[in-house]
């Protein structure tokens, strides 16, 4: 009898909790739901201040891709090229550096590792002017390398992988060394395959961060050929401030890849974020 009332109480509690959460969930989701609603709403209804579209039309999505005034599909392509390159580049440079810091012994190791950690203390704004001037001097403005090369490594990536490598049993390295396995082969055929979770976390985090970048691409690109999505959607506004529906369709398109990573790689992403936030 007592048990029954306990579970009943628990059920009531659950229902109360769901109802307490609903308004907050709605509040958090509102900007996105509203953006979606505007993007599929017939233009006349936007200006009549309708909140729920009477019919759903995907005209704005078609226009975002077909309007000759801006090359939205080119922006998307650019963002994919840049984000994937940065992601693969960081996996490469950070795996090697983290391997050196965790498996090898050499002089100056501690100082060099401190140097890596110290980069976390320098905010991007403290380097962005000088980086912009370098890029301009080399004639790199409006190029993929300007968007990719400065981000090809990160302290967060080295730190994340090093933490993972340090957990490897020492015997594994000893055994492979006796077999005459070189460091590079050991890294490639044993360490990396066993590091998929850490590499996944790094990859998800870096791809998302690069996809979401705004300030640097804004500074170093001003041609359609190299413009990325986040700068691109704000251009939709500059070109046609009245086309609210088109603008919102652009926002939704750009959010889809970010949300996909969040939904399908949530665990990896959160692991990456936890490591990344140490940097602040």
């Amino acid at each position, binding site marked *: 009898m007592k048990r029954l009332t306990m579970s009943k109480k628990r059920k009531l509690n659950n229902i109360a909790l769901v109802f307490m959460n609903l308004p907050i969930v709605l509040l958090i989701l509102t900007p996105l739901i509203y953006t979606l609603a505007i993007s599929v709403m017939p233009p006349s209804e936007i200006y009549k201040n309708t909140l729920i579209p009477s019919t759903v039309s995907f005209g704005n999505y078609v226009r975002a891709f077909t309007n000759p005034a801006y090359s939205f599909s080119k922006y998307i392509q650019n963002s994919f090229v840049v984000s994937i390159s940065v992601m693969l580049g960081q996996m490469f440079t950070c795996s090697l550096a983290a391997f050196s810091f965790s498996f090898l012994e050499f*002089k100056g190791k501690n100082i060099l590792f401190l140097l890596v950690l110290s980069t976390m203390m320098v905010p991007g704004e403290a380097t962005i002017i000088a*980086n912009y001037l370098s890029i301009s001097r080399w004639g790199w403005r409006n190029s993929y390398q300007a968007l990719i090369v400065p981000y090809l490594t990160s302290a967060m990536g080295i730190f994340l992988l090093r933490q993972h490598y340090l957990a490897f049993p020492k015997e594994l390295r000893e055994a492979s060394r006796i077999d005459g396995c070189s460091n590079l082969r050991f890294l490639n055929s044993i360490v990396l395959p066993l590091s998929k979770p850490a590499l996944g976390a790094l990859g998800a985090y870096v791809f998302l961060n690069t996809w979401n970048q705004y300030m640097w691409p804004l500074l170093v690109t001003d041609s359609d050929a190299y413009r990325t999505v986040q700068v691109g959607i704000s251009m939709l506004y500059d070109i046609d401030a009245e086309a609210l529906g088109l603008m919102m369709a652009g926002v939704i398109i750009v959010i889809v890849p970010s949300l996909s990573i969040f939904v399908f790689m949530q665990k990896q992403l959160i692991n990456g974020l936890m490591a990344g936030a140490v940097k*602040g």
Partner: protein
Amino acid sequence: MQKQVSTASKSVPHTSPGGRLYDKLEPYLFLLPAFSVFSVFLFYPFLRTIYLSFFLTDKFGNAKVFWGVRNYTDLFASSSFWASISVTFQFVLIVAFGSLIVGMITSLLTAREYPGSTIISASYAMPVAIASAAASMAFRMVFHPTNGLLNIIFGTQINWLGSPEWALFSVSVVTIWLQSGINFIFISAGLRGVPDELYESASIDGAGYFKKLFSITIPSISPTLFFQVIINIINAFQSFSQIRLLTQGGPGDATNVIVYAIYRDAFFNFRFGTAAARSIILFLIIFIITLIQFRFEKRSVHY
């Protein structure tokens, strides 16, 4: 890099007779790709920014006239600099505590599992994935003066982004929204670390929900909350997209936070020296906040 390599090859003891040079160099070779990028795009530009902050520059950013500390003293003497500092601190405080409170409420409401809690948690964490630029564009519509959601719902005609009274508040709301996800994730993780026994013994003593919240939960997760406030502060200091896309620092200087002032100085007025000085001031502020965090963490280890 070269310097490190050469000193190392001198002093690393020979592990095997005739140990090959390559074995000694290998650790450094593995570090080379990462350190090349750090050197060119982090160490050098950081030093270069410090250097530039002591010079007058031409419009291509070349140092022309040694100016000593005058870029700094000129900033300290200008009222617009202090206005920008004041706006930045207001913005940072609103955002840091606003997003902490949202994170606190959302993580407390999902602290235990119930039907639907997974999807509710996912909604609360979701803003971490959204770009600040994309969110800013979405909020631009929410704040739209004639056709925006806020004015439709409240039946008002407030110019949220264009009026001096509301602009900073509006930009802060966007930033709180953007940061609420990471606050939710970290505070939730903190809550999971509170031992159940603490609550059980308190329940036996007949403590109610709020009694437990203030005497057990909040003290137990106070290191997490402190850490999170610091992260919020540092992130808020670096906000740029929201300002650029929603208010351009305006109206007047109402939302001209330090980062936006740097952007204006360097890329509109081509005053790279002053912009560099502002960057270094921003660096020092963030540096001091980080030191405070380290201090606190060291202390809390002894508890």
